[in-house]
């Protein structure tokens, strides 16, 4: 049944492939913090990105999903221009995003709520000037009529794609996030109690003259309602780095995270490589492999698909083993 459902989704996505070309990064919804805290995504270090006003993402089609909302964009902002957005450095309000996620544990379901927001995002001056010059190029394309009297859509598309590439480089950004996970041993709402919390920060550096960009992570997570037993995994401090390479169809990411188990006074680490290939505007394949934190049963093997349907982009990645 699961295979039929996945096949159906792939067929639907392929049949929608005639839509306009989109960049590979646009197929991703920012992962809900709850997924990251639960180690349920293919990557442990997420790039800070611009969240959607309202979005839905699926961990996979039968294990759970998330909804997210960015309240700032619930209403129109008549005076908020593109130029203002690019020049703006502190972007906390615009990017403040709330999410709720649910996913399957071994014998029960877990519920998570989380937040994320970008504290700042600063383009270097030459890049900011290039972006605004490219904006002007789009405006010129939009306001120059073809001999037939219409808009040269191909020219606008080309200028817009170039703008996307410029926006993705030449900046530094800091994002913070937090989440709390709850579950019930009896699988009833009455018995729901929180069992894990975490807060973290991602710092992204995307040099304009490099094909790579880099993200550094610091994360503290702890178990709630856990008996203070030595040697238990009750609190962790994670720190790590990730490097990403992105081309028109490929996204390659390498990450290393070191985890300090504070109660057990020991260090664990995770090493993962994730590759994404965009087949068409609606369908991308994701593969991730490497070593997870655990001492045993720690091989990461993920193969999944990202599906975009209509205007919502869904993340349908596999879970870690």
């Amino acid at each position, binding site marked *: 049944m699961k295979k039929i459902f996945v096949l159906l989704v792939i067929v639907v996505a392929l049949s929608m492939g005639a839509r306009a070309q*989109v960049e590979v990064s646009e197929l991703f919804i920012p992962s809900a913090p709850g997924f990251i805290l639960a180690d349920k995504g293919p990557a442990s270090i997420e790039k800070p990105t611009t969240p*959607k006003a309202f979005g839905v993402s699926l961990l996979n089609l039968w294990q759970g999903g998330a909804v997210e909302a960015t309240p700032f964009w619930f209403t129109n*902002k*008549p005076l908020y*221009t593109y130029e203002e957005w690019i020049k703006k450095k502190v972007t906390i309000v615009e990017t403040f995003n709330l999410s709720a996620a649910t996913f399957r544990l071994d014998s029960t379901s877990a519920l998570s709520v989380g937040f994320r927001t970008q504290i700042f995002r600063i383009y270097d001056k030459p890049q900011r000037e290039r972006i605004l010059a490219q904006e002007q190029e789009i405006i010129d394309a*939009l306001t120059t009529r073809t001999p037939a009297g*219409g808009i040269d859509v191909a020219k*606008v598309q080309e200028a817009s794609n170039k703008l996307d590439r410029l926006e993705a480089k030449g900046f530094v950004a800091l994002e913070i996030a937090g989440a709390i996970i709850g579950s019930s041993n009896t699988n009833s709402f009455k018995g729901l109690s929180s069992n894990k919390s975490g807060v973290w920060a991602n710092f992204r550096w995307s040099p304009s003259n490099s094909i790579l960009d880099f993200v550094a992570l610091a994360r503290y997570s702890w178990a709630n309602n856990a008996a203070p037993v030595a040697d238990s995994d009750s609190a962790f401090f994670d720190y790590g780095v990730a490097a990403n390479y992105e081309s028109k169809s490929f996204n390659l990411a390498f990450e290393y995270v070191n985890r300090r188990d504070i109660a057990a006074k020991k260090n664990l680490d995770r090493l993962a490589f994730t590759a994404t290939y965009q087949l068409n505007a609606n369908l991308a394949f994701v593969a991730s492999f490497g070593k997870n934190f655990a001492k045993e049963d720690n091989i990461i093997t993920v193969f999944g698909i990202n599906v975009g349907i209509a205007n919502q982009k869904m993340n349908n990645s596999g879970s870690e083993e």
Partner: protein
Amino acid sequence: MQIKERVEDPVDLVVKSNSDVFMTIIIGNRQIGGAILEFEGDEEPFAKGRIKNVLLGKGRELFDAVLLVETNVLDSNTAHNRIIITHIFHYDDGTEIDSIVIEDEVDNHKDILSSAATYSFLKINR
């Protein structure tokens, strides 16, 4: 990349005869766009691109004119597909004559909204 076209209802603007009339267009919601201004009957546009404090002429010069404004906006905000355009007519000192807000939504990210508006100018009756 689809183009969604819409035609606005004509608007009459009441202006002072001896004052310069300006137009400014603000593309909100962090979207990207510009406009083409032309007077009905002219062969060439009067102004195009980013419209900010564009002098249309003295009020008395505009009484027989019909201003056509085509505003084209590319949805470039990944958060949503909503478009908001504000046409502001004002005098030299910034005093607003009228402000017309156009709100719409395109179906997909990177679609274009094209709005055609028509403005006529009337003399203030004192």
